[in-house]
């Protein structure tokens, strides 16, 4: 625990609350919150985690949508006897 980097909750919050949905937060900073004792947690840190997990879910959902679209495209391409690579989609 002591080897973990101390981070400013304010800085973390700003980073995580940024509008860029592709922004990947510093995993070490999140680990530092996860490693805390339950009694030492602040509401701010909990909110940071909530925002982080919400972003993770958004990213997972968009990956699923993309996967589903690619599967459909591959099926259509296959029906015409071409590959997604030859169409420049991969």
């Amino acid at each position, binding site marked *: 625990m002591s080897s973990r980097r101390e981070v400013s909750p304010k800085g973390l919050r700003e980073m995580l609350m940024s509008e860029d949905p592709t922004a990947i937060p510093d995993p070490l900073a999140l680990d530092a919150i*996860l490693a*805390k*004792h*339950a009694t030492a*947690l602040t*509401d701010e840190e*909990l*909110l940071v*985690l*909530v925002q982080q*997990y*919400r972003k*993770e*879910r958004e990213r*997972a959902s968009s990956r699923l949508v993309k996967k589903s679209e690619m599967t459909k495209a591959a099926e259509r391409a296959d029906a015409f006897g071409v590959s997604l690579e030859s169409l420049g989609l991969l």
Partner: protein
Amino acid sequence: MAESEQFFPGTTLQRHYDNTSLSIFKECPRKYYYAIIEGWRSPGKVATLEWGKAWHEVTALYDLRMAEGLGVEGSLLESMRLAFELSQEGFGDDSYRTRNTLLRSLVWYSEQFANDPIQTTIFDNGTVGLELSFRFDLGFAPRMADAPNYAYCGHIDKLADYGNSLYVVERKHTTQSLGDHLFARYMFSSQVSGYVAAAKIVFDREIGGVIIEATQVQVNATNFARRAVHRVHDHLEEWLADTRFWIGQIEHCFHTASWPHNTESCSKYAGCQFRKVCAKGPATRALELETYFVKDRWDPTKER
């Protein structure tokens, strides 16, 4: 002699049954004897049980605060604090069941069911339909003088209103995919029948069925799926007749002091915890239990 209320006084014949104890007997009468009557279990944490217990507690608190009108953010913060407390010591050696996956699953649960058509039941007296322990008389007694009737106990995770019907919501978690294969196991589940019977008898309400709310926990994601399982009145009559049969079998084993080993069950799932006990000769099994197991009896009468 067993001293818990779950047994008839001065005997080791179980009086109060739940789905867990009956399932263990159906699996293997000897396992039932070791686990339920003698109360042995393997030492150490079982991640599946510990994480599952924490998941039940945090989702129940979240749903309670939501039913009380605290709102998503307030309910989430309070239940996340509880999740931190419950995960303080970890859940054992399991990459799927960690503090991180517990917290993430809770946040994703709040997102998934943000506009939930299934609303936690609130009774006229203000009781919120969460974490409800029940117990009812099974209507038959053992072949012993002046013995009271057997009883059936259980614990309902959530009672919810959906459409115009009342449903029992049973939370399950798994690392398997949430397909037909997973839900098929609840089609004939005794636990489901017991819940429907309990809701009719204890809460005196007509019930639509049981909604299995499954949570798939992965290292990097959590997925949810719900499916309703229904029971008609005839199914419940069958369940009661079957329950009577199995309790009769337990009573027979008790009277003959014989708890046969069902070798078909030894290797199911991750394997029976008592395999290494049964592998010993009958004379050394007690020593094996005392050396490598701890006493921590499952008690269906204990309210949560």
